[in-house]
């Protein structure tokens, strides 16, 4: 990686990054992995490939809702970003099929978290 300069940091500060749309994040901390997040991540990647869906699938840390791991945050254009909890392989496939491809939220797995920044 090229060295970061003071000017680079100035540039980032001057231009606030627009909130990304079209991404999926899987909680991959100890609590998530213990609950099976590895498998969920693999399923999401596989399902996206199978359906030819182009979406950024990334990992992230723990948002705190450890009781509901594995957690998957989905943000796609036209829908509010939501967090799904207690996701397994089947639900991961359903998220890809219904939510990402079909633009319909999946019932029974949304965990609504609100925090003040």
């Amino acid at each position, binding site marked *: 990686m090229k*060295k970061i300069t003071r000017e680079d940091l100035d540039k980032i500060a001057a231009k606030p990054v627009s909130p990304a749309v079209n991404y999926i994040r899987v909680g991959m901390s100890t*609590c998530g992995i213990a609950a099976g997040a590895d498998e969920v991540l693999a399923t999401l990647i596989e399902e996206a490939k199978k359906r030819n869906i182009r979406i950024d699938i990334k990992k992230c840390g*723990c948002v*705190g809702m450890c009781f509901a791991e594995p957690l998957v945050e989905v943000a796609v254009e036209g829908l509010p970003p939501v967090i799904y909890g207690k996701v397994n392989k089947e639900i991961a496939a359903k998220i890809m099929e219904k939510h990402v491809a079909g*633009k319909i939220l999946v*019932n029974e797995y949304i965990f609504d*978290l609100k*925090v*003040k*920044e």
Partner: protein
Amino acid sequence: MYNKTILIKDTNINAEDRTKNYYSLVLNSLREFNLHNEVQVVRAADIGVYNHGVVIKILPDVIYQEVKETDIPRIVEATVKADKVLDDLVLKKEPKQQRIVLRNCGKIDPESLEEYLAAGGYQALKKVIFEMNPEKVLEEMKKSGLRGRGGAGYPTWMKWKFTRAVPADQKFVICNADEGDPGAYMDRSVLEGDPHSVLEGLMISAYTIGASKGYFYIRAEYPLAVERVKIALAQAYDAGLLGKNILGSEFSFDIDIRLGAGAFVCGEETALIASIEGKRGTPRPRPPYPSVKGLWNKPTAINNVETLANISPIIVRGGDWFASIGTATSKGTKVFAVTGKVKNSGLVEVPMGITIREIVFDICGGTISGKALKAIQTGGPSGGVIPAEFLDTPVDYENLQKLGSIMGSGGMIVMDEDDCLVDIAKFYLGFCVEESCGKCAPCRIGGYQMLQILNRITEGKGKLEDLAQLKRISFAMQKASLCGLGQTAANPVISTTRYFDYEYKEHILEKKCRSGKCSHLANYTIIQERCKKCGMCQKNCPAGAIPGSREEGYLIKQEKCVKCGQCFEVCKFKAIKKE
């Protein structure tokens, strides 16, 4: 495509779930208003509100509580169709959680420097190097009122100021990531979810005190945290954020990782320093404090992970901003790991001054069993219990101390009627006895003696004099132990005897454990109607107290029973009654 989203959830846990019913009713109503192609309705698993009846949330932020079936048409007509809020139903809910430490956790890829930078990362570092000087940083830290999150709550700016003031050819900074309290995992989560934020905090502390070298002391049981810190360090070196002449400035700084072998006492600062020096991890008397004579006898500032994660936001947003959050003596937020008999266990970050009730009931949804909350435990083995009658106490360092507990590092264990407080005290004391390094007698011998007494009491062999004896030993340990482990090890016993004296006395005088936890105090009988005559209890009874056969069935001979509880544990058909 839908342009509106409605979430529905019945939030009453102890009654029949009406979510599906309401879901159909809302769908029907939408159809009547011909909105069904524009609005989608979703059944949520958790809507972030508890015990407020059926909750309907119209995204992004209108929340209706205690919704009746008859309310549905007017909700659809007013709010869904015309964006008008119905004041009689609305739940005015400011989010109770506020995120400073966990600002990036769950939001950015912890293995990506780019994402940390995009989230405002290393702006604070730039600011201190180019726009501030160490004095200015200290001033800002003083204004912020930040106190150490590792347990003792010592003002961070003072620690930095003292370390800075000592003249020396070399100084060190250390990040304490030894997190040993049972039930606590806040620091692990921060390191796993946002390692650069801790790194940046450590760099700013080094810049401020004039240290050229830093260490991450992480417990080896946290392999993923170690891995992510390693990646972050490599990225920072690559990008010129660590090493010589950081960002082209005069400031040079290096960081190494040291792994802790998992002894609780190694989290104590002098033991931790000994451990990094390659010696046995045992505490030494203070003073001299590490700020004067620390690692290799050089001035050293040790800070906890969460403390360090607070630094960058304070620098960027200012000490006054930070001080505007919290109570008079305790500023900012605190991360708690809420576990035990709680519905939603996990990490919460809340402003200081929030009540325990808000944490347990409003954020975490109350007890998982729906039974009454009996007490909470904070501060781990150095802390104590807080009974239900103090649920409305605002959480800060002083208030928790007044109640006989401590803030500690942030473990919070919820207990309901099924928990025995004598048993809890025994658990924590047992932990300290196990973890005592043995260097000084009050801790080594006192802890062991107290544990023996607690064992006797839970086995129904306690005497009333034992309570006075527990007090005497506690006092000696507090006064004469060398380090915090021994000084605080008796706290769980002191606080449980303070609030739950009657439970100790029940164990001693009536040989009774009201929660049924203490197996030695229970009576075991076989519920014949449930017994499938499998013989498991007989096979496992160490006392030969269960005569009988697979044909005739089984019976427990009370005079032979040693009350070990084995039969209760092994019976698959729940045919053993424990009372």
